[in-house]
């Protein structure tokens, strides 16, 4: 892959590569081609897949007016689209789990409810946390994005004079693409860490503790009710015994 090659060639702190660059009077790019070589079977397959999905999915969709109308409406929704999509995915997955729990025949109704509430909480609380953390990190991430861009540009600035126009164009394109994904990557890391790590490791024990507490309370209430019932029955039996003995 051409663009990947320029990344490896110019941006890595590999001294040998830099030396070979300065020693080379005609800086023919040492692009690292694809794993199987340019035009290899993996690249052909990749190209085929790209073209097929572009032709039958992406292009027809891009030609639809409704897509732009819907997008325009979505711009009014605050927050990042990536965050909303990650949340939607998690919502669906949690929904499936809740549905499975409620349809589980091996569990009694009370337990089903507790578990479903547990699973629902394990979606709601982390979602709120993820949006909050993502919002709090926004400025920090922007700062890091500029730092990243600055470091890449500082690295390349001394080599710029030795690069051909095509290589500089490739570098600029690569930088543009990478910067576009910077904040999205941060959002994905935040959401995924919270959903897949913080939730099972921290939230589940808390939710379990809540479930345990509720179960305990209900069981105690039941036990108490049974005890009272038993006592009243015993009392009644005792009273009847006394009355029969009195009669006798």
């Amino acid at each position, binding site marked *: 892959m051409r*663009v990947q090659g320029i*990344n*490896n060639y110019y941006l890595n702190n590999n001294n040998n590569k830099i030396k070979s660059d300065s020693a080379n009077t005609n800086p023919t790019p040492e692009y690292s081609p694809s794993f199987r070589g340019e035009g290899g079977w993996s690249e052909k397959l990749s190209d085929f897949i*790209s073209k097929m*999905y*572009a032709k039958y*999915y*992406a*292009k027809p*969709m*891009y030609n639809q007016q409704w*897509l*732009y109308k*819907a*997008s325009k409406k*979505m*711009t009014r929704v605050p927050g990042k*689209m*990536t965050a909303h*999509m990650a949340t*939607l*995915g998690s919502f*669906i*997955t949690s929904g*499936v789990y809740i549905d499975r729990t409620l349809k589980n025949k091996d*569990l009694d109704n009370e*337990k089903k409810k507790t578990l479903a509430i*547990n699973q629902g909480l394990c979606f709601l609380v982390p979602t709120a946390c993820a949006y909050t953390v993502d919002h709090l990190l926004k400025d920090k991430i922007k700062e*890091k994005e500029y*730092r990243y*861009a*600055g470091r890449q*540009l*500082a690295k390349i*600035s001394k080599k*710029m004079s030795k690069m051909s*126009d095509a290589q500089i*164009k490739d570098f*600029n394109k*690569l*930088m543009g*693409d*990478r910067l*576009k*994904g*910077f904040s999205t*990557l941060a959002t994905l*890391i935040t959401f*995924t860490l919270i959903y*897949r*790590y913080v939730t*099972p490791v921290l939230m589940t024990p808390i939710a*379990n503790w809540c*479930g*345990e507490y509720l*179960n*305990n309370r209900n*069981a*105690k209430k039941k*036990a108490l009710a049974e005890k009272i019932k038993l006592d009243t029955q015993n009392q009644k039996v005792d009273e009847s015994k006394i009355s029969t003995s009195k009669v006798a």
Partner: protein
Amino acid sequence: MKIHSTQNLNSIRDNITTNKSSFGEVRQDVTDTRYLVRTGMSDVYLHGGSSFKGKSNPKKLIKVLMNDYLKAADKEKWYDKILDHGFFNDCLDFMKHEVFVQSAISCLVCMAMRPATIMALPSKKDKQDNMYASAHSVSSGLVGLISSILIAIPFSKGVKYAQKNMMHHLDTEILKKIKPNLEIESIWKDKAKTIRKPMEEWLDKYGNPFSDDMKNVMKIARPKHISEVSEETFKILGVDVDLAAMRGKPVSEWVDRSGKKIHFNLKDMFIAVQDEGMASSVKGYDNTNFFSLQHIDKDFLKEVMPELDIKSIEKDGKRLHTDFWKDVHGNDFKINLDDIHLSSYNETSNAVPLYTGAKRGNKYISRQTNNGSLDTTKVPDKLGSPIIQDYLDNDAEMDIATKALTWLPDIATRVIVASATIKMIPIILKNIFHLEKKKKSEDVKQAEIKPISTDDKIKSKVASSKEVA
């Protein structure tokens, strides 16, 4: 703290410091401060700004922008190694496949972080429980990754391919709508035959090469005060000066090695301006940003320098060097070099956006990198197209459309994938990890042997609820 004593006023290299070496110096500062506050000059000198307060002008020229924070910001940070690492670059390259990246992060968490944490946790029952939970986590991560490779990647590849190769074939009506900065007439090679030019030859409404990239804005190395810049940077900027010989002199009196007064290209001369209500590109300096004298907006400059005759800065539509600028009385307008900051990646790895002072709402307008110049590491001679609100709104719409197309297949198949995951995990656990969950009937049988008290009943209920969760 910004500027700390009147000794800094002339930007004498050796005297610019935030550290007080002796009690005497501190006392001197206090005296200076009292004097300046009394005479009403504190705003100018202590904060390094030319105050226009009282003239209902919120913009202030910051004379010397330098403090401990800026010095610290230029030092290596712990996260720099991450930012420079090839793996981080690879992750950014993969961001066109957002769904896959999410699954990959998820897989990493489920296969490494979570099992490590679970195994490290003390288990109340036995180690088998922890092993089962870890294996469960690994399996779910694996299933998620495989499903995203099979479902999400082909679709996102298709979307990317369409964006790259098919966009220029879209209907002109749609093009007009989704690319509002495109000069639609520039796309035709032969309009009658509806033959289009290649996309690289299209122009935008400002006559610059068409670009739909609104996120990678024009940037510069964060400027440093002239007194802080190294000799090497001066050379890069075309000024050969012996800094050791200039020690102790104000910058306005510095000369180069041939004895001439130092002289910079207009584009390389930056002023720092504090503009109320604007976000700062320099942490520690509220609402402060840098503006190149070549590119600064005329109205903005007039507000910063009210004494300047704004008509004198241009001739035949071209900006003149400050040497030719006049004040409102017709005299030469001398720019004080002590107010100047210089931008070079030789000095810092921190980048800041290049602003002109023109605004959209309450934010400065950034510029696209489509000025035709390839070298993005220097201060540009020419500006790229302005990124106005309409373009940003449209970019947001397009971004949402693209993300929707990329995520849609993943969302649409989530129910199937989740159901399949639930069914597949026990199979994976049994066949790969040789782990099987204990059947509840076994527990029940054991429980039936002994009569249970009410407390035991509660305990068993809690335990079973834990297992299910």
